[in-house]
């Protein structure tokens, strides 16, 4: 059941990305181009997703435990430090360069474009580099 739930959640998430337009780099870059011919549509993606989580997370987290596992695993981090700010800034720059954040890049692999493969491999390398830096 545990695995089935994870698979289904991933599928719904991926369908959401594809339906929303987040897997279309032209739309994403158009959304970020607020000083040019701004295409505001994608604001509705995070807008509606956050409306759902803001309300429903309250109810879910009031439960003693999740339905299929022992406990909730949440980030305990609270620090507004340099790692958070510089990491978010570097991520945002990369997002603006090509138009993919991690989820849409993975979902877009099914479109079989070689540049998406380059993006995903580079993303994994980038993660490994940051991890190595962080541990030394």
């Amino acid at each position: 059941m545990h695995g089935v739930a994870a698979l289904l959640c991933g599928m719904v998430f991926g369908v959401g990305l594809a339906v929303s337009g987040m897997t279309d780099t032209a739309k994403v870059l158009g959304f970020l181009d607020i000083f040019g011919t701004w295409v505001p549509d994608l604001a509705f993606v995070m807008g509606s997703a956050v409306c759902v989580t803001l309300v429903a997370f309250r109810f879910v987290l009031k439960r003693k435990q999740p339905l299929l596992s022992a406990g909730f695993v949440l980030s305990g981090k609270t620090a507004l430090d340099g790692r958070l700010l510089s990491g978010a800034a570097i991520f945002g720059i990369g997002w603006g360069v090509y138009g993919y954040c991690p989820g849409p890049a993975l979902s877009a692999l099914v479109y079989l474009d070689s540049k998406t493969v380059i993006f995903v491999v580079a993303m994994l390398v980038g993660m490994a580099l940051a991890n190595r830096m962080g541990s030394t």
Partner: protein
Amino acid sequence: MLYSYTTPLIGGLLIGLSSVALLFFLGRIAGISGIVWGAISAQPDNSWRWLFLVGLVVGPLLYHQLTATPYPTASPLEWWYALIGGLLVGFGVKLGSGCTSGHGVCGIGNLSPRSLVATITFMAAGITTVYVIRHLLEGL
């Protein structure tokens, strides 16, 4: 005009629903960068991560096939944009502990000030980057 807002709205609702379901069933945050890193760095109890990622790819495939929705047009940018963009995205999300989903959708949903600050920061950085590339460097 209506059409251009409805699909982002429906897509966002599905993303929100998936995030709520993952928390409700498994007690996990649907942060894609965290799930990817956990999967490739061989964290314990890893099968749910790989299955989620399989779904993330299979879901869109089924959606496009079953609804006969054409794939988005491939990016016109050169391959090295993908290389540089991918490196920066991967490095940044690992350093900043999250991306659009983990900080933007789930973290803000969980009223985390840290996630709100991260989301404002990466949105501003993305907007600035597109401005620089499209409007300052254009024509150089």
